[in-house]
């Protein structure tokens, strides 16, 4: 399997849920190994944008092209294989609460194991697996929690488990949906530092959705701004003016017009 980052191309994508347009004619591309932050107010379509990249959400119109292959062309097997190479840190973590940390991390690799192999690993992890996972947990700062029950950990620790699970996939891209939404401010920078460093070292593409614009500017060289499902800007962080940001987050004003434009008649 080829390592190195995955390249994503979003090609004029619209995503509809019923009569709600979550994304509207969005086009951009993210290079292999590139770190990008997707910013915007809540409801802007940031989560949909991330979920689009590994096919958790399908484009209603347009297509997403990953490593040169359109997602709409992938059969279930190819889609599973792609997903097994994309680590996803969900905003609500989505861990398996009543099992030990080691099993939650092991679960990251299910996508590349046969059913029998996964039964064996989940029932009795090998020494090599335990060592590798311990190393990963050390990396995210909870090395002593390997055999702890996951639901006994604090929220911050559980989030590290979710990151470790995504990394144990040996992914070629890491997608993190609001990874600091429920982390205290002191931890927030540590989490972003961890994600950006790991991805830089391994050459992984990193796409993070963030509500917190200051941290996005601090940690990411490129920002994609979404608002009401539309791509508002997409440029190097240094070229994003404070005016642009004020427009992105300004609450009222053209909201009514945007709403009307967003709803399908």
């Amino acid at each position: 399997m080829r390592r190195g980052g995955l390249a994503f191309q979003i090609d004029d994508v619209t995503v509809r849920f019923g009569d709600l347009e979550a994304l509207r004619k969005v086009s951009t591309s993210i290079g292999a190994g590139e770190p990008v932050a997707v910013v915007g107010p809540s409801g802007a379509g940031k989560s949909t944008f991330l979920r689009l990249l590994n096919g958790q959400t399908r484009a209603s119109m347009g297509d997403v092209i990953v490593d040169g292959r359109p997602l709409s062309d992938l059969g279930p097997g190819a889609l599973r294989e792609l997903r097994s190479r994309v680590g996803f840190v969900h905003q609500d973590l989505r861990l398996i609460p009543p099992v030990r940390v080691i099993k939650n991390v092991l679960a990251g690799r299910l996508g590349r194991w046969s059913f029998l192999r996964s039964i064996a690993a989940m029932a009795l992890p090998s020494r090599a697996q335990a060592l590798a996972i311990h190393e990963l947990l050390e990396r995210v700062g909870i090395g002593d929690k390997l055999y702890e029950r996951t639901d006994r950990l604090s929220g911050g620790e559980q989030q590290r488990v979710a990151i470790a699970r995504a990394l144990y996939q040996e992914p070629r891209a890491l997608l993190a949906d609001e990874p600091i939404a429920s982390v205290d401010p002191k931890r927030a920078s540590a989490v972003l530092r961890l994600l950006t460093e790991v991805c830089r070292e391994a050459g992984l593409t990193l796409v993070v959705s963030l509500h917190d614009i200051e941290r996005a500017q601090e940690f990411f060289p490129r920002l994609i701004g979404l608002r009401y499902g539309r791509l508002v800007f997409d440029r190097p962080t240094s070229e994003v003016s404070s005016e642009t940001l004020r427009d992105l987050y300004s609450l009222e004003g053209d909201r009514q017009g945007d709403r009307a434009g967003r709803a399908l008649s």
Partner: protein
Amino acid sequence: MSGGWVGTANRLPGARAGVILLILTAGSGAAAYLRLELRDLLPTEAGLSLMREFFAAALTPAVRYQAEGVPPGTMPLLIKVLSAAVATVRFAVAAVTLSMLIGIPLGTFASESFWRATAEEGRANARIRRAVSRALYLAARVAIAILRSVHELLWAVLLLAALGFTPMAAVVAIGVPYGAMLAKIFSEILDEAPQGASRALRAGGAGRLQIFCFGLVPLALADLVAYALYRFECAVRSSAVLGFFGFPTLGYYLVAAFENLHYGEVWTYLYALFGVVLFFDWWSGRLRRSLAT
């Protein structure tokens, strides 16, 4: 869910009162039809003395046979009680094992979250697959409803006629309806388990069976085990009652002692049954706690 409740209540303010009125009417109607009278709760003179005698014996359960002239070489009473208790548990264990063999696959097929977890996106013949899984789901639901609607005593009557007087008939009589009950509750437990973990595994490329086994079952396991243990307790009671048909469980000897008016012995068998149930209650409590921690 609760929103729906509130909405319904708002639309039909008198609905709840109507339901209560309906239940009360039905209840008093049935009582009138059956000619239930409070007077019938009072025992007759003879009944009263029998009851007094019977409950007095509760304080003095028999430790040896109450009958005169027990033939030499007869098994001592307490040994017989013990062996009846062991036989009761044996039937219960066999029946619950059978019910798990029936209930686990049936309950899995009858749960919506199993089919949701195992649905695959983007298949060419997705429509056929959906139809097949829908058919299996409905078949499992119908099977559960049918098997469950017949009580284990009725199953025993049917199976004794069909299979003859064999231990297998007793085990199947308990195991089949219990299997259906397990299946029903298992499917509900699986459907109530949170979906987050299984969605995450799917997003990580896990396959259908993997999603079900590692993303859904672990979240439901503690409840599944607790319910299976509760069913086991019920099976102990049912297995004791199947003694009425002649199987060597506590019920068999209990009825015999009762008919001979040996109330002391009746109480010995009853205490043995309490003992068995209490023991397994204690043990299952320990097991559940160790699972929950």
